[in-house]
């Protein structure tokens, strides 16, 4: 289980989450930031600092946001 960055991050790239992530598992992809689902420790530090509320726990993801989890997995080669 991990946190997932969704659509509101696109072109926003505020990066507060990158600064607070204690395991440095957030990296910039093409047009948004992505969380490595394997390295993520589920601490939720990123969720509360996101200014555009783009970060959700995998369990709370809407069906339409599922592709963002797949995108993160592909980006880090975890698919």
């Amino acid at each position, binding site marked *: 289980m991990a946190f997932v960055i969704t659509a509101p991050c696109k072109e926003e790239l505020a990066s507060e989450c990158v*600064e*607070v*992530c*204690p*395991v*440095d598992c957030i990296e910039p992809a093409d047009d948004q930031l992505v969380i490595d689902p394997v390295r993520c*420790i*589920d*601490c*939720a*530090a990123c*969720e*509360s*600092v996101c200014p555009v509320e783009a970060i959700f726990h995998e369990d709370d993801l809407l069906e339409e946001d599922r592709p963002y989890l797949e995108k993160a997995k592909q980006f880090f080669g975890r698919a």
Partner: protein
Amino acid sequence: MNLLSIFKRSLMLPKKEALFSLNRVSMRDAMVYIIILLFILFLPDIVHDFIRSSSSDNSFLLEVFVVRLLVLYPLLILFIMVSSISLLSALIIPIKELLKRKLKYQQLWKMTVFALTIPLIIIFAFRILQINEWYINLLPLIIYFVLMVKMITVYPKRKL
């Protein structure tokens, strides 16, 4: 997350589940939580002051009390709260460096808010029991530092 859930989870610290779920609380909610907690814990003092002021025949005393209650107390509590939490969080910075954890000051600040729940309840209990010995009053501070160290070590070590 509502304030009661925050309180319950704060009592469960330094458990990993409690710490990580409290990380989801916004900074605004964390501040509201600590203000309400402090207000509740200081309530007996306020009630005591009110009874003293209202039992007096002097209406001036009552007016002074109302001004204190509505203006002075909230501002004083807010000032003491922000400065104490900021100072305590700053004292934790060398500890987290020593423990090699990547945690920002804002995270430490929020962790301090929740870690203060148990020490504040103990301080309140000491006041009720009228325990005034300085060395016993150090206990809440020691508990705070122990809690914070345990909470920090929940996070994995920073990779070099």
